[in-house]
């Protein structure tokens, strides 16, 4: 019973994800970074084009997610609802500020940084919890 719970499908998939992440660094010596990877959208490719590389990886993530969603029948084309657009825009701008101000997003911080004991990732994680909790208290709990 415990074995079944311990190795459920989601955990096996996330284990595969973590192994793939380490494998990528081992094979091509590049981390998959989250935040800075979007800088090519404002014309910054980064030293050795490493941001551009990460941006292409992220485009691959979209393609991979689409393959996963189509193969499992979860793909559904949904247009944005008018009421959700302001939150999407404000949230996106805040993410844009956050990822550019200093390195440390969910990917960099929780997937790679903390397991590798990087102090910057622990600081970023603390900030992410604080920021999310503030928004949770102000926006979500009220609504």
């Amino acid at each position: 019973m415990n074995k079944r719970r311990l190795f459920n499908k989601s955990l096996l998939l996330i284990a595969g994800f973590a192994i793939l992440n380490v494998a990528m660094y081992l094979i091509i010596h590049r981390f998959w970074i989250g935040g800075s990877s979007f800088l090519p959208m404002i014309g910054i490719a980064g030293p050795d084009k490493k941001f551009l590389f990460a941006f292409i990886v992220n485009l691959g993530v979209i393609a991979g997610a689409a393959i996963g969603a189509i193969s499992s029948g979860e793909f559904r084309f949904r247009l944005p609802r008018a009421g959700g657009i302001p939150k999407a825009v404000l949230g996106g701008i805040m993410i844009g500020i956050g990822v550019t101000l200093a390195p440390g997003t969910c990917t960099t911080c929780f997937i790679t940084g903390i397991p590798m004991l990087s102090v910057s990732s622990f600081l970023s994680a603390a900030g992410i919890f604080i920021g999310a909790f503030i928004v949770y208290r102000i926006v979500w709990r009220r609504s």
Partner: protein
Amino acid sequence: MSFTALVAVGFLFGIGFGYFVQRSGFCLAHGLGEIFIGKGKRISRMFAVIFIITGFISPQLGLKTIGEIRGSGFYNLISGMFFGGGIFLCGGCILGTLRRIGEGNMTFLIVFISFIPGMALVVYGLNPLLEANYHVEKMLLPELLGVAAPFVTAVLIVGAIFWLRTLNRRR
């Protein structure tokens, strides 16, 4: 390896990441929401698994850690706060946003495009101010604690395994 070949390999890895993320339903923003309402077992298990695998494998392979590449400083905390607030507001972290675009949810395409003004504000507006005060130091937790890295990793991995077991036992 030429840049084109590197990008091609990276794109293939990206497809793999995207597939695993979509099938596992992993999203930090969603996970934080679960934690705040007291139902954080699912995301905690996922983080524990990632921590155990990456924390164990990376030192064995002698990989250069992210802490050796990037500095840390007060701005990590501030940027984390903006990022955390942003992902919670729009309902998707970086991975979650990319995953949902792939799933056909166009709201997250708006989130994705909205990164641009935020990034431009910092790069072209705030950066000159920040550069004068942004001092970073490349640092790893073992250095900070003054303990050898294998001990810190071992303690944290054992802690994560116990955490995972505790989460699995709880109903």
